[in-house]
């Protein structure tokens, strides 16, 4: 029997709020963070986004740090969420590590200066903060964590995957405590990238709706602290347990999911197997549910394949937060722990018509219900599909 992994800290910043409490309140009040673009300097003002409504300087102020150019928005968001998650931890006595995730890293800064530099009229300082390791290493310095650090980038499943290596580091005894999660800030790079793929909705996204027309981009960071159950002290606060996880590859197309959702089904099945659970024991699925035509169809069919007659309550919280890319997996893992703790299923906003290919509709109202097991999906480019299962006790 493998050692159980407990979640002993959570922290989050998103368009719903600057900490766990603010995020939970927005979820309960059905208040979406998707709005007209304010801070991102793009010509595409018609595209709604889910921004954290603070400037970089304001984010630095929240942290009590003096703002400078090498503190990228990505780093600042990561620091705020990680600080909240780590706040009950002292890393003096145990071996502690960080496994963070990001897709575009310091791009928000790089994209302002890159072309100017190459055209001979700009500076090169951004090269220090461009790569994916930068925010993780600053996080490590800020929290004083140094026994192990690394960064994962598997597109939109990145931070779900950080929980897998985190668990292995604990089970192998290499670490005693590990901060896992991810971060992405909105950037012109991703906005224009997804726009060129023509999968951005000009309205609020409609996950699992017959008339869905694409995703909204969001930004944020979320981190969780993982420890072995056997190391917990009697007074340790446990938010949830990580019972199972799996990553499977769709091996179909670089960006599109297979129509029948092979990789997604495999990820869910393997996570159930690891958790030693039957499908009917899952009470709630926090779906990837980006609201693109392709994702919601293949994810929906995969859910039908895995759960058959016993489809649990399903909802996507992307209509609240937008798609926060590398942060999505850990944002939704935090939401899953909040669902378990508060015995609440969050509604799938903006839904009106069931998809004709699916046998189920998402949960559209806030539902109060005791929950034992929550499954959370995160799928990304490169056919990278991940599922995690959390339990209350």
């Amino acid at each position, binding site marked *: 029997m493998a050692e159980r992994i407990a979640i002993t800290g959570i922290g989050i910043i998103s368009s719903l709020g600057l900490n766990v409490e603010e995020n939970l309140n927005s979820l309960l009040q059905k208040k979406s963070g998707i709005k007209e673009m304010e801070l991102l300097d793009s*010509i*595409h003002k018609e595209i709604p986004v889910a921004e954290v409504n603070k400037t970089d300087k304001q984010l630095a102020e929240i942290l009590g740090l003096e703002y400078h150019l090498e503190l990228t928005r990505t780093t600042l968001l990561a620091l705020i969420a990680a600080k909240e998650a780590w706040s009950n931890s002292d890393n003096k006595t145990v071996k502690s590590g960080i496994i963070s995730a*990001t*897709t575009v890293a310091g791009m928000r800064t*790089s*994209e302002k200066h*890159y*072309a100017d*530099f*190459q055209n001979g009229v700009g500076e*090169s300082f951004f*090269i*220090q903060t461009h*790569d*994916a*390791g930068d925010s*993780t*290493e600053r996080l*490590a*310095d800020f929290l004083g964590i*140094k*026994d*192990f*650090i*690394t*960064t*994962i*980038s*598997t*597109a939109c499943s990145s931070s779900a*995957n950080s929980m*897998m*290596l985190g668990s*292995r580091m604990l089970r*192998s005894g*290499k670490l005693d405590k590990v901060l896992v999660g991810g971060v992405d800030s909105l950037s*012109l*790079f991703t906005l*224009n*990238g*997804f726009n*060129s*793929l023509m999968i951005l909705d000009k309205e609020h996204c409609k996950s699992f709706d017959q008339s869905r027309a694409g995703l909204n981009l969001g930004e944020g960071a979320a981190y969780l602290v993982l420890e072995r159950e056997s190391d917990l002290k009697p007074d340790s606060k446990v938010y949830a347990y990580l019972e199972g996880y799996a*990553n*499977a*590859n*769709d*091996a*179909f*197309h*670089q*960006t599109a999911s297979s129509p029948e959702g*092979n*990789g997604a089904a*495999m990820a869910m099945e393997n996570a159930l197997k690891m958790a030693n659970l039957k499908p009917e024991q899952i009470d709630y699925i926090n779906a990837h549910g980006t609201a693109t035509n392709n994702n919601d169809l293949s994810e929906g069919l995969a859910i039908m394949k895995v759960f058959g007659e016993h489809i649990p309550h399903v909802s996507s919280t992307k209509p609240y937060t937008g798609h926060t890319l590398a942060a999505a997996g850990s944002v939704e893992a935090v939401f899953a722990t909040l669902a378990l703790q508060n015995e609440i299923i969050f509604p799938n906003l903006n839904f009106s018509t069931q998809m004709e290919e699916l046998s189920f509709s998402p949960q559209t109202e806030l539902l109060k219900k005791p929950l034992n097991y929550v499954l959370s999906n995160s799928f*990304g*480019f*490169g*056919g*990278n599909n991940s599922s995690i299962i959390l339990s209350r006790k």
Partner: protein
Amino acid sequence: MAIYINGIGLISPQETKSNASFLEEVNVLEGDYFKIAEPPYKEYIAPRELRRMSRVIRNGIVSAKIALNDSGLENPDAILTGTGLGCATDTEKFLMAMSENKESLLTPTSFIQSTHNTLGGSIAIGLGCHNYNMTYVNRGFSFESALLDAILMINGQEIENALVGGFDEMTENHNKLLLTQKHYAKENGAVAGQGSGFFALEKQINENTYAELKELETYFKPEDSAIEEKVLQILKTHDVNTSECVVLMGFNGVPVEQNKYNELRDSVFLNSCIAQYKNLSGEYYTSSAFAFWAASQILKKQSLPECMLVSGNVPSTIKHVFIYNQFLKNEHSLILLAK
């Protein structure tokens, strides 16, 4: 649990595509950074696919295929890649197009291919491999993290084998940026390089086995004495006789980093044969994959190419290769391979 390196593949600035030869001839540096000695891509990749692939993906696919063919492994239980920069060319293309066209009329191809896990995903599609697929992207820890995850999964009985690789590309534009940094400065700086190395790791030894992977440790900003202590501990744990050991260090011409290498050379490794590899690969985030390939070859072929020798005598029997690499004094890694 023992883990064996049963297949290797490397595309680099040197003629490394054939594992039968081992750096008998050296391509010398031309220009500001090391360029790839490109393999005949058509022999490995269908023309239709080749057209769409950027250079870094091509080299990644070719090196992964060489490693898989070498080992006979067809469908690995896990595909793990490490890359510091990911797909630099496609990232640059999209950045420049965005700027030139003022965010209009953009095509998605370079955006799609700019993700760090493009190579991992492409290998999976090529093999039809639905298994665990992970990409690590933390500077000088990128390849090491992929390797570590594979070790933990094999030791934890999650998998029997894995394909693990490290890849990075260098471009004119990126090198222009690097040259403004002290680490890569023309005076006392490192010369940038690139490459892609893949390895088939398995629990079983076979007739093609290159080496056994004994140890992997990473250290982030370690205290001054920590590396030496750790080296001593690893040598003791694995009963390494330093006079039968080749030590492969990441000498890169940067004085502050050189000090640490020299210190170890003059203390714990006084009796050892000291070798280098960045004179052949250049400096890049995943250069330890080049070292890993070289170490596998050294142990299997029981020889050290002259171009790698720094000091000491090549042992008549090479029992171990110890790899020590660091990046900007921040990321340090120690890897021990045994015959």
